[in-house]
């Protein structure tokens, strides 16, 4: 990628595109990967509200897959997941295994 020169910069270093961080993927930070086990999911959406990285995709009020482009693997979702009948709907699995 060609780096910007001084003539290419907006005055005052203002960022003119709101939400441009969505182009910066943080998924490679992950050491552990959350795995969604749909049959144990009661759609409480705790994983969605507690996720610090907005990495739980939700469609029409229901969670779908994790967004692995952004999930940093903190594991909050798995810990907070109430699961169904004592069975968690999210498990953390070591990356590369």
């Amino acid at each position, binding site marked *: 990628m060609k780096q*910007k020169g*001084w*003539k290419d*910069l907006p005055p005052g*270093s*203002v960022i*003119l595109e*709101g*939400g441009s961080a969505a182009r910066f993927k943080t998924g490679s930070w992950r050491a552990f990967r959350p795995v969604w086990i749909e049959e144990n999911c009661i759609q409480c959406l705790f994983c969605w509200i507690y996720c610090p990285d907005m990495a739980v995709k939700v469609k029409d009020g229901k969670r779908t897959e994790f967004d692995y482009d952004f999930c940093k693997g903190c594991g909050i979702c798995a810990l907070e997941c109430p699961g169904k009948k004592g069975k968690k709907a999210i498990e953390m699995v070591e990356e590369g295994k």
Partner: protein
Amino acid sequence: MAKVVAVTGNEAVANALRQVNPDVCGIYPITPQTDMMQRYASYISNGKVDTEAILVESEHSSMSACIGASAAGGRVVTATSSQGLALMWEMLHIASGDRLPIIMPVVNRALSAPLNIHGDHSDAMGCRDTGWIQIWSENGQEAYDNTIQAFRVGEHMDIRLPVMVCMDGFIISHSIERMEYLEDDEVKKFVGPFKNLFPLLDLEKPKSYGPLILTDLYHEYKKAQHEVMLKVKDVVLEVAKDFEKMSGRKYGLFETYRLEDADIAIVILNSAAGTTKDVVDELRDKGIKAGLLKPRLFRPFPYEEMAEALKNARAVCVMDRSDSFGGYGPLFMEVSSALYQLKNRPALINKIYGLGGRDYLPSHGEMVFNELAEIAAGGKIKAYKEYIGVRE
């Protein structure tokens, strides 16, 4: 039609601000500026302006709030002096780095310690590297005129930088002089409506102000800031031309007084220039070719133009009303840098005068000119830098 009035410098600048009618102003008291912004506050209380005031709890917050207000999208002013300007120092860099055209009259005053409320230039010189445009004023008329012009310069779409308009504390801020006011509608027309660049309050296009910029781009941003400063001179002259058309009063990057054929010259800022002009006249009456140069635009500094103006003098003294302890006075350093580029340059000395409001008298100017005459005649320079008007 111009209106002739007898007012103080503070009153004149407060009136200039009223005529411009900014959207927001930060107000915080500090001697000798206080009187200016309390006058402005009375305009607000009496419905003479549309301005919303922020009655901040410090100058640091004043400049912070002005930055927020300016980024939000509108015309913003505040005013300060001395310790207040020093307290703002951190935020001054952010105002210029964010390219926000905040206009700030600075009523020049000494810095502590020891505590002193009187006029010298330590405050504004202390922030000459903050990226602000600095315009200096000899008297109340110039302070008034420069304040009005500052909006056009700072808000120019090719510039977008904050501007300080400097005038001497007490000597100018509190002395009544005869001057001419422009009509309200003339000023309004001259300054024009505020144009936005990146207004934060444009909700449709959300922007982020103040990102973290690391090694990959910081250097480029600073280069861009330097480059925009290089464009300021032309804009200052263009605005001055328009101002002259309206007011009949001529302004440049600096003023020269009987300098063209001068053998000896003094370079001096603000009110003391007026005193020195009288000395020049007296010497000229005696057949001595004395002259004066009074800088107006100090940041950016017009190096080439000043070198051109001073190149024929044989000896020049730069007089500083502030000091860079252990170095030369700040004005001297600039003039010295300007003259160094010349093949044949005048001899150059530096005098420090009038700190903390110490009187600068015609006899001081005369003494300096006498010394310059000796140097011009081939005499040795006794001291490159010297305090004058000081007791042993």
